[in-house]
């Protein structure tokens, strides 16, 4: 078996894992599975694309950084778009989810997120059509690193970015007051309210983190694969599976779950063929639900 699947799997796993952090946070803190999360990914990517084009229109063609396929405009654009996606998630919460949450039926919120997902995705299709686009059409030369594995400079950069982001979110969750409030709210909402945790603030931070990371994951897909309105929706099942495999509420779990699913998908491409890769997350999901429904790092529900 060709070991190349390790790199491919780690990259897919990074995209899934970054998205799954948002899924697991919304699930554990706001208590619903957000079916619109994949569409945040796509919106973030198209926002990045829009900012890149705007910068291109103002400054002309910018040379890429070293061996990478993109230059500083993309980095600026991602930061702007992360903010945009976070605000988009916040706005959707304000007009839709928060009001339904107040009625106290979590499954109605899930249904609304399903409707919102359809509307968001089709709106993207309306604005940008369903034709795929790319950040760059340049083809990168993959460098051999031994054992028959090859890797491109873009892929190295993205793996580093993922590691930094995951480390950052983990630090935020464990070392800051906000992060500890988030954990408290996910473990015992009633008690958290009693001790005076600012719930509105925690909800805001949750959406900003989830939206921002979804945007980065989407841009990674855009750089490595292609940009389509459906790109996020196709990631929804792997992201849910990763969040459940890692254990709902656990940030390291979501990332590890994402990596496991990414590696399994990449291995499956070699063993049984690329057309079946989307079934892998479903098989893992069902296996987890039958064997260990609380996931790897999950806490039993009270």
């Amino acid at each position: 078996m060709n070991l190349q699947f390790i790199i491919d799997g780690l990259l897919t796993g990074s995209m899934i894992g970054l998205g799954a952090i948002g899924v697991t946070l919304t699930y554990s803190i706001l208590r619903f599975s957000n079916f619109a999360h994949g569409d945040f990914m796509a919106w973030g990517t198209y926002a990045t694309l829009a900012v890149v084009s705007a910068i291109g229109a103002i400054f002309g063609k910018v040379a890429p950084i070293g061996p990478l396929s993109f230059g500083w405009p993309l980095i600026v654009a991602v930061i702007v778009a992360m903010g945009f996606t976070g605000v988009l998630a916040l706005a959707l919460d304000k007009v839709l989810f928060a009001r339904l949450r107040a009625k106290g039926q979590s499954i109605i919120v899930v249904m609304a997120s399903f409707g919102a997902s359809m509307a968001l995705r089709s709106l993207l299709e309306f604005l940008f059509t369903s034709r795929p686009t790319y950040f760059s059409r340049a083809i990168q030369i993959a460098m051999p690193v031994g054992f028959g594995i090859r890797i491109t400079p873009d892929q190295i950069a993205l793996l580093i970015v993922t590691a930094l982001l995951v480390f950052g979110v983990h630090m935020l969750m464990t070392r800051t007051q906000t992060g500890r409030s988030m954990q408290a709210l996910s473990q015992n909402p009633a008690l958290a309210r009693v001790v005076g945790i600012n719930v509105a603030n925690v909800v805001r931070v949750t959406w900003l983190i989830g939206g921002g990371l979804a945007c980065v994951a989407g841009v990674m897909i855009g750089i490595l694969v292609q940009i389509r309105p459906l790109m996020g929706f196709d990631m929804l099942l792997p992201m849910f599976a990763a969040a459940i495999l890692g254990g709902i509420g656990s940030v390291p779990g979501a990332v590890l779950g994402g990596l496991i699913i990414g590696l399994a998908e990449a291995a499956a491409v070699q063993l049984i063929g690329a057309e079946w890769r989307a079934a892998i997350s479903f098989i893992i999901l069902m296996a987890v639900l039958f064997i260990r429904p609380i996931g790897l790092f999950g806490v039993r529900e009270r």
Partner: protein
Amino acid sequence: MMDIIGYGAFFLTTALIFSFITLGLNLQWGLTGLFNVGLAGFVAIGAYTSALLTTPDTAGRFGGFDLPILVGWLGAMIIAGLAAAIIGVATLRLKSDYLAITTFGVAVVVQLVALNAQKLTGGPFGIGFIPRPFSNLAETPLLFNLANLGIVVVALLIVYFALEHLVKSPWGRVLKALREDERAAISLGKSARFYRVQAFAVGGAVMGLAGAIQAHFIGFIAPDNYLPILTFQVWVMLIVGGSGSNKGAIVGSVLVWAIWAGSGALTSILFSPEQQARAASLQIVAIGIMLCIILLVRPGGLFGNMPRRRSAVAPQQKTAEDKNSAAS
């Protein structure tokens, strides 16, 4: 005039086939509170099962058993019901969201199998030459359409009365009790999981039947018939009609299908052919927003009888209710 009657019969047949799916969903969600966002998968399972059982033997594809249509329908119900039961066993002891995620996965996987298992499903080309009831009337379209409408109405009445009977039976009362107050129902010695699996399986079987009826009505199936948009349409139908009411499920289906077909016709008049794909996506945006607004403003729909559950840990809800009572 004859054309209008013919189209009316065709429109109503299509809408009523949707209402089978909506009835199945109403049993799962409206009555039992089980959230199925992969119903397109169960419809597809039914359609493909029935197609495999009833089509004549084809070279290069499994099956083609050339059985009567009724056997196909029955097989569709059994296989779709079995699939639902397996999903139910895996997820129904867990929090409700897990069912949503798993059913979503079912739809993805069924779509994948339909596209890639060429030997079984014909792949992207689908399965053609599915026997149609009353095909000997096909020369006179009007008669053919009316006959098809007739058979769909008869089947719908049977399913409708069967479901109404189930709702009023002790079995249905247990389901409602579980939906309203799980602890109380369990304390009366009812196994929540067992009843839910049953309800989910019966609902899945009805959805499978819908898929089979549709396959035989059109005479051709392909993976594209069973995209997530189907799930979405049926959900809107049930929410508009009112969760919990079988009557609402049928009325909602006809109403929403009328809006859908009408707006489709409108966009084809208003937009040039190149713009029509874009206009169609705007149509979906409109329906999505409509679903969200109904959920916010009138979650009960037209005929809904699903009382709002009171939750012990939602203090905001209490203040909202206080405000309401103060206002009235």
